């Protein structure tokens, strides 16, 4: 088994299985905070997926996307929790 096969058939599936688990939590909640955490984690996992993928296809340019994901995931978490606190509870 070459490194690429290993990454392709073992590592990537592990990462996406993680993603499915995270998705399960996302859907289940129960609180909105859980969903936000799940989204954040999903994006982090996505960074991992992209990193592995860029090795498999030997294209370092894909890493830029990972960088953007990291930057922006943070912003969305900030915004969502900002909102969470700010909204009036009814």
């Amino acid at each position, binding site marked *: 088994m070459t490194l690429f096969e290993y990454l392709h058939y073992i590592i990537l599936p592990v990462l996406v299985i993680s993603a499915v688990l995270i998705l399960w939590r996302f859907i289940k909640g129960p609180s909105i905070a859980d969903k936000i955490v799940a989204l954040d984690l999903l994006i982090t996992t996505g960074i991992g997926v992209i990193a592995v993928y860029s090795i498999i296809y030997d294209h370092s340019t894909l890493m830029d996307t990972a960088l953007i994901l990291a930057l922006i995931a943070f912003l969305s978490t900030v915004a969502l929790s900002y909102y969470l606190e700010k*909204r009036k509870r009814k």
Partner: protein
Amino acid sequence: MLTAILTGFLFSIFLVFAGKFFKGKLSILSSLVPLGLFLYFLKFIPEVSGGEIIMRSYEWIPSFNVDLGFKLDGLSLLFSLMITGIGFLVFAYTSSYLKGHEYLDRFYGYLASFMGAMLGLVLADNMITLFVFWELTSISSFFLIGFNNTNPASRKSAMTALGITGIGGLSLLAGALLLNNITGTYSISEMLTMSEMIRANEFYFLAVLFIFGAAFTKSAQFPFHFWLPGAMKAPTPVSTYLHSATMVKAGVYLLMRFTPVLGGESIWNNSLIIIGGITMVYSAVHTIFRTDLKGILAYSTISALGILVFLTGLGTQAAFLAAAVFVIVHALYKATLFLVTGIIDHQTHTRDVTRLSGLNKIMLPVGIAGILAAISSAGIPPTIGFLGKELTYEASLHSETVVIIIMIAIVLTKILLLYAGFVAGIKPFTGKLPDEHANTKKPGFILWFPPLLLALLGLVFGVAPFIIESALIKPVVEAMGADASEIHLALWHGFNLVFILSLITIGVGTALYFIIKPSEKLEQGIAKFDSIAPENILEKFNEIFVTVANFWTNFFQNGYLRNYISIIILFLVVLVGYIMIGNTSYSIDYNSLSKITVYEITTTLILIAGIFYTVFTQSRLAAVVAMGVVGLSICLIFVFYSAPDLAMTQFSIDTLTVILFVLVLYKLPKYLKLSDYKTRLRDGILSSIFGLIITVLALEVLSEPVSKEVGDFYAANSYIEAHGKNVVNVILVDFRGADTLIEISVLSIAAVGVFGLMKLRLKMKDRLRYADRSLNVENEKKKK
């Protein structure tokens, strides 16, 4: 000739600016315009009666083959003289009749443009030009009928008249275009030479139908007649002008003009006979049941028009002759009677014939005019009316079919018209003067002279028919396509069947006059039949139409955005689905597809989960967060399939959208479950089919061969020519940089829009000012 026609229009434009000048005492000067024109046309008599046809053509719109082609032959000359001659008298009469009226200048303006339009109509040889003037008569008569525009009845009549003549006008247009399709020309003269070809054409029937549509509406033939009595709301000079001599005769003119082109076939002749026949009898009967002088005159006018149509339909030389004479007869006596009625109305302020009698004691010259006109209308010698009636009977007797029925109809009509003429022209002036009119003032010269002149002309032409014989009548008959060389007009035709019929007519009619007195009772009697009268049927139809229009409009434009979207999508689904079912191959070449891997399937599943979660969650915030999941999955798909730039942009923008949502969300209320199960099911089915169609479409496209020519060009030139290695970016800033420039403009506009939307608060007063007041009031009402 063009100048002559345009004079009317120029004068009315002139009046817009110099109206004040013609409002006062100088208003009579405006009658110089028609007088000049009358004299101008008069001087053509020698040429025309010599058999010449004067053609003038001015280039206008050669691309349409539309020229300002004019033709002065007997027919158009006769009408031109009537238009300008009676026009002159009406103009003069008006200066006194509407003396001091606030809008006298406007009135002259309308009148002058009407005259111009009418002249153009009768002179035009090009069918489009004819149509143009035809419509101009409709529109200027709209203004004339609606002259008292603050009166609702006036407005309604103007609308009705415009509506009926308007649809007729369009019918004329269609006819013109159809004839052009058949003959390749708009020139009536040229069509004349192709008459046989036209009649053999498969569309002949349609062409006839279109021409009838125009003529019958304009000339108030049954069942389109009802606009004409309504049009009596107009000031009397208008009635005189429009309804005696000119506009209503335009339809007759059209039929006469087209007789040599379209006539000769049974469809043409029989239709005219039947429609003209019904009209003349129907309206003649109606005259008995009217008490308003103008009403009586209106119905007798319709009847006379029926006679003219009928005569045209007979299609013989005798009939044409009768028609030609009757045109003049009618113009003279009917104009007189209208003017007389106008004077009575002007002086006594009533037109109710039951309240009028003995006025000759006050206005003798008017009385003389009225009585002379009545006699002419009754066809009593030695007026020209007698000649007209004799010729009519003569022509009818020699008709080819159902002579008996035709004779009964025409005699009955003539009897009733005699009655009507007497009621209008004699009754007001005979008998005892009622006290209420004892103080009535004598009308001025300018008022009584025009009717008297016209009445006297009727007498003169009767006594000396040779004056008009070769000058006017013969050329008309020739223009209608019959041989006129044998024609010889004389008052006395000898003692024959026609003369007997004349005697019967005069006898029975006079008896009727003494037996039946016009009364309100009679008027109410006929009112019972109103519900089946054409105008009421049309009115009903109109109501139903408006109801249907309302329903149709509100059915589609019902205020619910989701219904609009549904309809649009349904429309798309049905059409695209229809083609798809017939054409799609449903085959997929699996070899050309890329392999599916676990992580791709998972990403797809996450995407789908995100989508459905967005759709079905009850929390808006959760939906927005789920959009983040969707955005991430799409971003990953872009990464997998070689689009890092896309992935970056897609994800950044998705996040920004989420932030935007978050910033406004907490101001918005919570989701409500607003739709019921049925609605959701229906929407679900529609959306699913739509989605399915898109999927099938996508697969179908994927099975097509692919061309990467453009992409290859970019790739080859990206670095060498455009100095960039990221081809996508090079496309954005260079190959397709124009797109990008517009795109950032779009963004800028959105930003400005957002800024304005959030920051701009109109002040209270401005709010009111721009929210449509009426709209608000209506809504308030609805809420209560």
